[in-house]
């Protein structure tokens, strides 16, 4: 961690977004992670995504559990709300907060240990409930914070820093999310912001649970030769299946792709996600085909990346539960708690 604060000096031509903020207004405090940690790059990508979408900082809720990854919400949007929960329990906190106020933007940051080891159950149920949030899993194959033990995403045969091979099979969060019915499933790499930023933007605008598995190397405990989650390994084995272009509502569509290979998906708020398939056979709207494809590429040792599956839906936890439209803070107290007389009436009905 650095002892000095990031200099207040700014680039005089630093851009401003629709609400007059610069990217630096979306920063948090100085990172205390190891120099070169992939998680810091994900933070930088998030800052860029918030900036580009001109999100109002006080409308953001950052939630996380425990881990190096879970520390990162401190490093972006310091003016946002935040909750650092117990290890693996962030999804419950996110679901609870979202139940109370559906109008805020929920961003959950987790790790492979946090989500796939101790918090696997929580993770699965958040997907099933379709909590309306962006869920970023910063995946480094180890428990970084506790000094590099293999996590549940470590590949068979991947070597620890001490040279020991992992023998337990990995949990792939992407196929897991797909099989649990998630409507937005992506995989990306901390070292590729061109890919990551538009996916994060689309995820923030997606209605329902938006899941992004980001390969985010742990420079200290898992960036050596023999690791399958290192910068070098990810770069050589990464295969971009779909390129994503996020077109916000009202923006002119000026996409970089030729139309033939593009699949456009309109989101709940009217913005568009344009997916260009690098493999013409690939269909990011066919859940079973995507699962098959991922199975096949994983067997080859390839890391398929991109916004792999997307369904523009109107659904989320609130539509399932038929809750009130307004955030609970805006519901008058007498309506929220109609009093014992009403309770008596209801109970009378069921006698």
């Amino acid at each position, binding site marked *: 961690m650095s002892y000095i*604060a990031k200099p207040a*000096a700014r*680039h005089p031509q630093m851009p401003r977004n629709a609400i007059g903020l610069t990217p630096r207004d979306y920063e948090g405090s100085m990172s205390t992670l190891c120099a*070169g940690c992939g998680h810091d790059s994900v933070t930088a990508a998030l800052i860029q995504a918030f900036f580009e979408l001109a999100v109002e900082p006080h409308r953001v809720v950052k939630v996380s559990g425990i881990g190096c990854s879970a520390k990162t919400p401190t490093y972006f949007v310091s003016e946002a709300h935040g909750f650092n929960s117990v290890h693996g329990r962030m999804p419950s906190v996110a679901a609870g907060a979202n139940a109370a106020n559906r109008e805020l933007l929920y961003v959950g940051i987790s790790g492979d240990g946090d989500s796939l080891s101790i918090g696997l159950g929580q993770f699965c149920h958040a997907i099933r409930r379709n909590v309306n949030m962006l869920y970023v899993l910063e995946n480094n194959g180890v428990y970084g914070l506790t000094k590099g033990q293999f996590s549940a995403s470590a590949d068979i045969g991947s070597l620890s820093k001490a040279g020991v091979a992992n023998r337990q099979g990995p949990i792939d969060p992407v196929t897991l999310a797909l099989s649990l019915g998630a409507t937005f499933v992506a995989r990306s790499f901390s070292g590729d912001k061109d890919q990551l930023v538009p996916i994060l933007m689309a995820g923030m605008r997606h209605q329902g649970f938006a899941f992004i598995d980001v390969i985010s190397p742990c420079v200290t405990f898992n960036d050596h030769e023999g690791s399958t989650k290192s910068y070098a390994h990810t770069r050589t084995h990464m295969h971009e299946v779909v390129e994503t272009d996020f077109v916000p509502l009202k923006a002119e569509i000026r996409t970089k792709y030729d139309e033939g290979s593009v699949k456009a998906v309109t989101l709940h708020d009217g913005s568009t996600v344009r997916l260009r398939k690098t493999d013409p056979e690939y269909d990011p709207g066919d859940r079973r085909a995507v699962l098959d494809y991922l199975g096949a590429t994983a067997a080859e040792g390839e890391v398929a990346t991109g916004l792999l599956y997307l369904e523009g839906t109107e659904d989320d936890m609130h539509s399932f539960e038929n809750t009130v439209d307004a955030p609970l803070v805006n519901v008058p107290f007498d309506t929220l708690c109609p009093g014992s007389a009403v309770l008596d009436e209801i109970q009378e009905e069921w006698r």
Partner: protein
Amino acid sequence: MQPTNTRDPQYYHKVVDCQWACPAHTNVPEYIRLIAAGRFTESYLLNRKSNVFPGILGRTCDRPCEPACRRTRVEDEPVAICRLKRVAADLRDDVSDFLPAAPTEKNGKKVALIGAGPASLTVANDLMPLGYEITIFEALPKAGGLMRTNIPSFRLPVRVLEEEIDYILDMGVDIRFDHRIDSMKKLLDGGEYDAVFVGTGAPKGKELNIPGRQEADANIHIGIEWLEAIHFGHVDAVGERVLVIGVGNTAMDCCRSAKRLGGKQIKVMARKSRPYFKASPWELEDAEDEQVEILVNHSPASFVVEDGRLTGMMFDLVEWKENEKGRLVSTKLDEVFIPADDVVLAIGQDNAFPWIERDIGIEFGEWDMPVVDRATFMTTREGVFVGGDAAWGPENIIWAVEHGHQAAISIHNYCEGKSVTERPPYGMNLVSTKMGIHEWRYSNDYDANLRTEMRYEDLEKRLADMMVEAELGFDLGQASREVERCLNCDIQTDFSAKLCIECDACVDICPVLCLTITHDGEEDDLRNRLTAPAENRDQALFASESLPQTGRIMVKDEDLCVHCGLCAERCPTAAWDMMQFDLLNPHAGTESWPTTAITV
């Protein structure tokens, strides 16, 4: 883009904006750090190595370094570089043991220097330690040139001036006062000297030939002559109402001197408007603080004389507009009379060489100026050199010093029988400043403080006496605050492509968006697709060799880097390091640098 060769000392030199802009290439950031460490003597000596007169320059330098200062691009105001120089000079201990000394055994070569201004004094400073016998011929009874005769004591106390001049003369320079050279031919024909250096300045003040000039002569003064007369005590009073014609630095010294000689209403008359004033902004400020009035758009028309005595001047009131060719032209709107008891002309200086015969092999060119080589300072006659204001017209002290250094190199070469065009090599030392994972040998924490204001002597006190220095200098508190504003531009971000794993940490952390990892391209194209467009073409782009993992390159726009070291701090592989750059700037007698240095 061709990978940047950071092993050429001039690449990193250019990053140190102040040092690059300083004609003598003073190592500003290092002297500021020495002040910060309380090592005033070392700071003084480091200054002296390049600029020879730190105490004088710390008060009077034209400061080309300050508008160049990186801080002006990051915020508005430069570091008070010049004032910090004065801090080192004011607070130093006795330096006599550390000054260059002349060997008792001489090298058998004799050099004559004509004029004892900063140019000649610098030549003497550089050549005396090499064993030369130096003779200076000076027309006046004292040394220093315009630094003495024209810069008033309220800006430069005589004590400070003399001390630094004596450091040079005390090496055993043979100086002949009241000895004007009026024939170059005679001097050369005497054959006594192996080389001759002309440092006679630009001694002639410009005239204003408008009606009434002759009749009013008794009350019209040529600025530089008048200042000299004040210095030597020949003038000690002036009328109540004084008009100073011109708005350059000489005019500022004239109006402020008039104020101290008893003038009550002092008006500086400018032909143009403020943006076109030649005086440095700080000199204008100081004059206005002393209740001098500056009138714009007044073009002198005539001197008005009644009963044989000057009563004032007529001015045309004008308006300036750009014509189609972009040149400013004036239109007369009206005429005004402004009463005056005395008028001082401060509209420029000319060179004059009536004492150099035109048939002795020294070729004269345009404007009747000697033809002088820009790099060697030699005239068309071998062994005769010119520098300072005498070479290409009026400049300033720091340029005179640099001319002196370069001429000394040439004179040394010439006397050793080497070609004067053979210049000694530049070099650099590069040393890592890393102390621990997050600790550096310099204060890398960015300080957002604004520029420290100067303290001045009480107005009444300073106007009462010519000898009272107007500026008080920074006190210790001010100095220790101002030093932190320096961005340490000499602590270079030094990159090793082969170590980079392309984790983006440096790109992400940089507060001023200097860094980009991208695919290679031509510079014009690259400049447009960086993290922030690199629009300042005066500043270099660093381009690395291709990176091991993806073959892309690291690009750095040097423009706004605040040298905070965060890129190096966030780099897991130490691909970035913060290296202290020390320019090895050759002077006369430098033949090579130690083998540990990087030279080209």
